[in-house]
């Protein structure tokens, strides 16, 4: 469904991504794992059209995304939840979620899309009238993902969804992500802690200094010496 091939990205004069290739099949769950500063965020932001690659292609279904503006990429069905959640503090929780239903009409009615978002994150239902500032860090993460889901996407890009969450909510969020995949959505998750990678992940890529150094299953990663050297040493 998403095929990234040979991506080279420069920020100012530094070469940040080198020949990055990765693939997410229909309804698949794929994790991009790497230490801080490895290039995960840059990869997701380049896919979303915020950065232009110097070389390489990004294909989503039949469309070439690498020259498309971000809003057109969203219109194709790619949704994004950034590292900092990107909640609109000036809007209520309900308005944050609704926006996506106004900008991208799909076959599914807006009310149903909103209901699906609340079904996946039931906690948000009680907060619908709250302002974006009155949420905890974990609630912001949930709202950010719920809002992305309301876009009715084919593929969700999540940048460090578990980062900064209390250990008590991590399983809840993992269960919500599983629920999203049951709705038929693909997931591409950037993660710096391999222990957060859900066991039902289809494939995992390890990125280090802007290069993909491993591609395979979670089991294979746990047995791979070079992967363990890069990220395995980090205790959960």
């Amino acid at each position, binding site marked *: 469904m998403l095929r990234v091939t040979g991506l080279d990205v420069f920020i100012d004069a530094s070469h940040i991504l080198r020949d990055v290739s990765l693939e997410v099949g229909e309804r698949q769950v794929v994790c991009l794992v790497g230490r801080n500063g490895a290039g995960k965020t840059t990869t997701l932001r380049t896919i979303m059209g*915020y950065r232009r690659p110097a070389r390489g292609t990004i294909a989503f279904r039949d469309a070439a995304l690498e020259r498309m*503006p971000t809003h057109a990429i*969203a219109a194709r069905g790619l949704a994004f939840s950034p590292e900092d959640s*990107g909640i609109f*503090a*000036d809007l209520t929780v309900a308005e944050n979620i609704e*926006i996506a239903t106004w*900008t991208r009409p799909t076959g599914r009615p807006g009310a149903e899309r909103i209901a699906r978002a609340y079904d996946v994150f039931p906690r948000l239902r009680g907060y619908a009238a709250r302002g974006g500032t009155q949420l905890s860090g974990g609630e912001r993460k949930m709202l950010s993902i719920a809002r992305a889901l309301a876009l009715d996407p084919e593929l969700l890009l999540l940048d460090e969804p578990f980062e900064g969450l209390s250990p008590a909510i991590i399983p809840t969020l993992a269960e919500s992500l599983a629920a999203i995949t049951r709705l038929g959505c693909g997931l591409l998750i950037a993660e710096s802690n391999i222990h957060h990678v859900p066991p039902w992940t289809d494939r995992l890529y390890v990125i280090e200094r802007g290069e993909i150094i491993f591609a395979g299953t979670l089991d294979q990663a746990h047995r791979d010496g070079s992967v363990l050297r890069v990220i395995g040493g980090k205790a959960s």
Partner: protein
Amino acid sequence: MLGGVFHAAVLFLVAAGLQLVFGVQRILNLACGSFYALGAYTGVSAVGWALGAGLPAPLFVLVLLAAGVALAAIGPPIERLLRTIYDRDEAFQLLLTFALVLMLEDVIRFVWGTAPVQLGGVYLVYGQARIASTTVPVYNLVVIAAGALIALGMGWFLARSRFGRIVRATAENREMAEALGVDMSRVYVRVFTLGVGLGTVGGALVIPATAAMNEMGIELIVEAFAVVVIGGLGSMRGAAAGALIVGVLKGVAIATWPEVEMLAIYVIVIAVLVLRPAGLFARATA
């Protein structure tokens, strides 16, 4: 005092346009004063023409409104021109919008000449009202009401309409809005045009009570910036409060001690800068 509120109503329109464009597009648009001047000149011509064509005099205010609104059509091409500087630093933005000020001044000079243009006494068709021992033209009250209505309308639009919510989301986090499918170029054209329209309507409404002069744009932009500093950059409520403060202060100063008119405004500006540098209605987020 009422003269001050009248001035505040017009000032609010221009400052609201400035705030809206800055809040969403992050451009400090010096030319918003020129839109105001252009609105004034166009208003004079439109009313002159309409009365000549046999329009009953009491309807002239509708002609002014229509002229102001129609003139907002210059918004999209000008926004097109400004698009090149969205990602440049403020110095370029100020330079280009200042170039726009000079260009629009030339346009005015070319079309209407250099002498002040006046509408005459039509605005007195509504008569005078006697309020607390002073008389004011009823027209001034109409403009105050129109300013208040537009302020309420803008408030409703930003708070409740879909596009208003999208505008607020964009103002807060442009990249996130784009990822949610918001086409920035469309939002920018509409917001900019709305900003132009607020300025041109303000200019058209003010003109019956004064004369259109080429300097009026520059004069107003100075006051509009004072409003913005007092109210807080990017805030609509700030624009309304700041316009009232500046307008009333100016009215009182002119009535009591005309020499200190500008000084009085700047004392307030400096006081706000010292005590509350972000303005009275600074947004928590911006």
